[in-house]
């Protein structure tokens, strides 16, 4: 199938369990524990989508998104946000964030948002 999902989060558990969830659904999952690693992976592996935590140590999700946009304009980025911070929402929207998931996530929400991306990708490829 070849479509890759990149999960960026500084929490070990989050990366591990989210990855497990999507691998069960036959999606190839890459993980990064910080923004810099994430950018490297985007450069190297060109994932189709990424789950990006906004609040991280080092460069945060907003900055990571900005830099990712410099190398890949098409990647679908789902922001994972812990607060209702409107400023952050506005900034990431301007940077072309695809969708939002609020912490603590609901599994159904995660599933539908991400799988929707891959269904679409699949359909686009088919056409």
């Amino acid at each position, binding site marked *: 199938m070849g479509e890759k999902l990149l999960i960026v989060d500084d*929490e070990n*558990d*989050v990366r591990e*369990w*989210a990855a*497990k*969830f999507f691998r*069960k659904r036959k999606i190839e999952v890459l993980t990064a524990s910080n923004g810099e690693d994430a950018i490297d992976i985007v450069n190297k592996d060109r994932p189709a989508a990424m789950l990006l935590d906004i*609040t991280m140590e080092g460069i945060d999700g907003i900055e990571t998104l900005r830099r990712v946009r410099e190398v890949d304009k098409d990647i679908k980025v789902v922001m*994972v946000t*812990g*607060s*209702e*911070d*409107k*400023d952050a929402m506005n900034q990431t929207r301007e940077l072309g964030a695809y969708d939002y998931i*609020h*912490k*603590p*996530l*609901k*599994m159904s929400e*995660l*599933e539908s948002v991400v799988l929707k991306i891959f269904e679409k990708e699949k359909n686009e490829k088919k056409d």
Partner: protein
Amino acid sequence: MGVGIWCFGCYLLLVSQNKIQAVFASRILQFGSIPIPILQLHFAYLFIDISKKRRGLLYAGYVLTFILLISDLFTPFFIRDVSPNLYFLFFPVAGPLYHIFTIIYFGVSFYWIYLLTKSIPSLSPLKRNQAKYVAIASVIGIIGGGSTFFLIYNIPFPPFPALLVALYPLIISYAILKYRLMDIRLVITRVSIFVAVYTFVLGIPFVLAFWLKPWLSAVVGFYWWMLPLGMMGLFATIGPFVYIYLDKKTEERLFKRQRRYQNTLKQASLGMSRIRDLDKLLKLVVHIVSRSVRINYAGIYLEDKENNIYNLKASRGELNKPALSLSPDNLMVKQLIAGKETLFLDEIKSRMMDAPDLESLKLEMAALGATVVVPSLIEGRLLGFMVLGDKCSGEIYTKDDMEVFTVLANQAALAIENARFFAESKEMQEQISQAEKMATIGTMADGLSHQINNRFHALSLISGDVLDSISLADTANYNDEQKELLGEIKYGLERIQDNVIQGGEVVKGMLKYTRKGDAGFGQVSLDEIIDATLDMVKYKIKLSEIDIIRDYPKDIPKVKGNLTQLQEVFFNLIDNAYDAAMERKQAFKEPGYRARIKITTEYNNNGVLKIDLEDNGIGVKEEDYKKLFTPFFTTKVSSRKPGGGGLASDSQSRKGTGLGLYVIKKIVADNHKGKINVLSRYRQGTRFKLELPVAWAIG
């Protein structure tokens, strides 16, 4: 005094039967008139307050007067003889010293009138009135007294105007009573002591001379009169000292209590500046004044700068209904601001013929229970005033009292400023430390809630994924026991997920208060504000009991504002409206009544969005609603029944702090440069009218 002796002399002169008696009478007459110029001069200096500077001149004057007195009584140099003159059988014939007296009399008289008229413009209004009386009295006295000189110099002008002299003491006495030249008791006491001392001092030689003349002439010979004269000289020298001593003693006795409380007040006024608690200070002042002076009522009114009103802050004693606050338009307050002087009820009463508009001032003072009103001034500004009732003893207030009260009032003004400054700086300190505390808690809560949220996030993910695995698992080969166990695990994980989601909501609520960027201003839509407010207010009131109707178009402009602060504004308004509705519901039990808040807007392309928030609650009575925005004003009674509110803290009977609307006004007017007004009608509802600048208008 002098005038009295003079009159007595006149009488003696008129009834004199023979020449010797007439000479004697003339001398008595002159004995009275000789001290008049010097006493008048002394009085003049005292009156315009320069007696200390002219002490030398006064002393010389008294010595000269004494010489003239002695020469009048015992030598022929003053009154040589008596002779028939005009209608008079006997009339004094002047000796050489008499001419000196004539010059002094007229000189001093004209000098006195000159001094008085010159000083009138610089005197205080009260003294100016006194001066008028004194001037009139003096002119009459001088004309009357002066008329007697004509006959002595053989000018045939009858001395009838002399009768006018009798008016002099009358007018002065009237002025004393009316304008408090001196305490009347003091006048009486002094005069009596003076008469007693001098009757004794000068009487003994006379008696001696009269009764012992034969015996003395026999023993001492022709110069027998030297003995009484010597005695008189001696006594006259001692006299003033005896007089001064007795005067002091009796005065001490007479005014013992008064002096004592005056001292107490002076002491108290010095200690006052050390008291930093304003209320305590005011209570103390009232206490000291009413206790030490023993007056039936004392009250202090203090300026409330923000509302431009004078409030009764402390009072003591019985008064039926003291006015709790007075506006600067009040006639009496106006008078204090303009005159910067103590007001006397008595004076106003007696001055009323001069200015009839003082009638209402008098009524106002009487209504306040004021016999005296003492202003407290700082740099010419009326900081407050002290209202004093009558003394319990029935005595009147004296000039000395006034001086003490003035000192006290001025000291009190300083102390009040002091205490106010202290309270303000203390309050500011508290606010700063409170703000610091909140900022620290805010930062902490921000970090904490993110941490907690991340844990919830991981928990949700883990439990969710395990649940997912379970639902994907092929359980066809599992036995019943295994299936049951799996079911249990599934249920447990679902419970964990539910709890995590709920915990997440709590954290979300917390984050709302600590959200970054709240210090700044941005574009905020009315919907956003109201949504955020309802989110918060739902914990406090039951939203199911009230309809909140948003009756405004979708395309209204956003306002320039701070969401959190505006949220606070709407929170208070909606909370108040709810309370008002519940109060109406409970008070009138109208069938079919349902609480309603209607929010409407108006925008006229002028950069200002008008927002009206109208409720159908109990409303505010007219007398109250002007005061709605003053701090600590509240009409809220315990309007919510125990348990009626949403949160536990509401289960206690609730009473407004009176700070809500005050804070709202600060936020709207000061922080947002907007406006807030209120219209209300009792039993109909309240409408708050807000005006907020729209986002583009201030760049």
